[in-house]
């Protein structure tokens, strides 16, 4: 039969493809350590560090991993890559873990941590992290990674936050309030630039960036039991106020209408590089990107400040990042997983990539955080708010994206859009 022959030929052919030449190398595409080491830990990681396609990043992590495994010759780490498709990857990880096929140790996006905690698949790593270590974490991080018994179920190894970027040649003073932001946007438009840019497209970034305006007023998305309450009582007023802020920006012309199509932070960097942007709500990681992209004299004009609030003393910013958690019940493996975090990621791994550590001590420990921007980031982190640790959050986010898109494109009025969002979230919550 022809097909069988063809398949046999295809199956035999991989031998012809050169495999990674890695006889003595401690770090290969799917393993760290020696192939004949007696103990094995499986570790699922993103392609952002050890296997990053950015050579500088991957080399730094190869060194860190090599040192780590040389100190533990009995172990090898079998690495499994997860793709950048966060939603599908994290769903798959959960499926596999529940089917008993999951890795021993894995990276989990901070936005999904609550879900993993709820399903009870995370195993404590207390043997590695002391009480002092935990106490030194930022409060929102500490709350997210520990359970009621105080056990460490994951380690949030880097965080991020949103700030207001501005070109000081058009916006000399940092806007402190929503009203000032709108004025500054109008002034920038007057000066021939685009106004205040922000994420307004259909994606997680839109909801998360905007939620800072809700949180700045003390708004709550869910109650203590994880039930959605964002459209009830005072929260409702705060939601409407935050919607009105964005709506006014667009309708006054202080923000261009194209914001409802922005679903990528890189769009801001591009606008800054093209010289059309005056202000944008961006992530802290974009500071380094701006420095690398803009000519020096142009970059010198750019400054960061805290996101404007309804009043100067009402501020908040959304904080994200990645965590690492143990999924194996084996004590040795849990320990090793924790040590990977402690010796590789939280600290040296932060510094190598310029990512924001989650405990204050690390900022002083590394030169990488000497820049003035890090003082501002650290200050803003005081007002950091993480996504609520509730399994309903993804649907809340989805509905907020729809609500903002509809309001900003003029398809719906704020009140009706909020009611529709609340009803949809409630329906989803009832069936969870």
């Amino acid at each position, binding site marked *: 039969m022809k097909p069988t022959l063809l398949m046999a030929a295809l199956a035999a052919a991989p031998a012809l493809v050169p495999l990674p030449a890695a006889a003595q190398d401690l770090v290969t595409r799917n393993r760290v350590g020696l192939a004949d080491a007696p103990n094995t830990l499986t570790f699922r990681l993103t392609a952002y560090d050890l296997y990053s396609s950015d050579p500088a990043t991957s080399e730094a992590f190869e060194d860190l991993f090599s040192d780590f495994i040389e100190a533990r010759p009995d172990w090898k780490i079998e690495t499994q890559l997860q793709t950048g498709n966060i939603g599908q990857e994290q769903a798959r990880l959960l499926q596999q873990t529940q089917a008993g096929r999951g890795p021993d140790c894995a990276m989990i996006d901070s936005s999904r941590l609550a879900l993993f905690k709820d399903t009870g698949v995370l195993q404590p790593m207390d043997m590695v992290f002391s009480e002092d270590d935990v106490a030194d974490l930022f409060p929102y991080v500490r709350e997210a990674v520990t359970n009621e018994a105080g056990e460490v179920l994951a380690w949030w190894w880097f965080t991020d936050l949103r700030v207001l970027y501005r070109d000081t040649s058009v916006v000399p003073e940092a806007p402190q309030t929503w009203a000032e932001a709108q004025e500054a946007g109008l002034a920038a438009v007057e000066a021939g630039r685009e106004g205040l840019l922000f994420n307004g497209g259909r994606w997680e970034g839109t909801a998360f960036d905007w939620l800072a305006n809700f949180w700045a007023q003390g708004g709550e998305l869910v109650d203590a039991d994880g039930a959605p309450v964002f459209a009830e009582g005072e929260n409702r007023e705060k939601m409407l106020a935050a919607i009105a802020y964005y709506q006014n920006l667009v309708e006054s012309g202080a923000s261009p209408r194209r914001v*409802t199509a922005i679903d990528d932070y890189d769009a801001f960097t*591009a606008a800054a590089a093209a010289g059309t942007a005056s202000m944008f709500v961006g992530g802290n990681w974009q500071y380094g990107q701006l420095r690398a992209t803009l000519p020096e004299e142009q970059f010198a004009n750019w400054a960061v400040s805290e996101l404007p609030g309804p009043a100067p003393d009402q501020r908040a910013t959304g904080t994200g990042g990645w965590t690492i958690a143990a999924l194996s019940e084996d004590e040795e493996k849990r320990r090793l997983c924790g040590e990977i975090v402690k010796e590789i990621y939280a600290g040296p791994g932060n510094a190598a990539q310029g990512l924001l550590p989650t405990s204050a001590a690390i900022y002083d420990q590394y030169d990488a955080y000497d820049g003035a921007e890090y003082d501002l980031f650290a200050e803003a982190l005081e007002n950091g708010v993480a996504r609520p640790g509730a399994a309903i959050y993804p649907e809340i986010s989805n509905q907020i994206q729809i609500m903002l898109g509809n309001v900003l494109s003029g398809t719906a009025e704020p009140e009706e859009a909020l009611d529709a969002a609340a009803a949809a979230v409630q329906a989803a919550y009832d069936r969870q």
Partner: protein
Amino acid sequence: MRPAPDRGPGAAHPAPWLLPAVLVLAAFYAVPVLDVARLAVSDATLVRPASGFSTQALRAILTDPALPQVLGTTLLFVAVNVVALQLLGLLIALTIARGERRGLHGMAAFRTLVLAAWVVPGIANGLIWSMLFDEAPYGTLNSLLAYVGAGPVAWLSDPRMALVSAVIANLWQGTAFSMIVFYAARRGIDPTLYEVAALDGAGPWRVFTAITLPLLRRAIAVNTVLVSVQTLNTFDSILALTGGGPGRATEVLSLFTFNTVFYNLDLAGGAVLALLLFVIGMGMTLAVLAAGGRGEA
């Protein structure tokens, strides 16, 4: 049925011929498909197995106030795409076929270009079209329009325009399929028919309406079905382009299903939507076959 000689065409038993196909489907596909039906009447989520029979998901999905809008968007998206994809595919296929008969150069290169667009990984779609449709002052298409004194167009930020843009991006990627189907079908037409027509002095339009179109009718009917079903299940290009926004302006049923399963982890709801997609696909198929394939099996 007319009686036929023992071994002549039309008289054998079909079972042995269909057996391989049926066996493979039964072995790998039957159980999962039945499972989908079972999940639709359960309360399963991606993180929690079904605990028993429940029509809650069924009711919740079918009474979802967003569903009518999503269905409307879906039907519009599918209808426009099915017409546009096939018109473009037919135009290209016939032009290339003509060009080859005339010995024109570049026909194979053009066909390859169209096909290459089809095999570009979906993730590239997002990269490419977000630059083309970029509404910043330096956006590609708007800059081009500005040269000729037109625009700017709110490609993705205007809810109605966003659907048009999604169709354009889908045309770029999807035309190859119809092109290949029609090209193969056009090649299958007996050339003597055209020779006879030429002897009769028939003009190109007359040849097209009297020979090409009637003989391609079968291929068009089948292709309409295939393209409809594919478009109905398309979500990755929209996901990359607009994510379904602004608001819900470009959220088609398959993207809605994707969000239900992977965002909301609602497996039972996803299964209901999968069945809904199936019913719509089946309905369209029956309608197309009834209209286009009348009198033929």
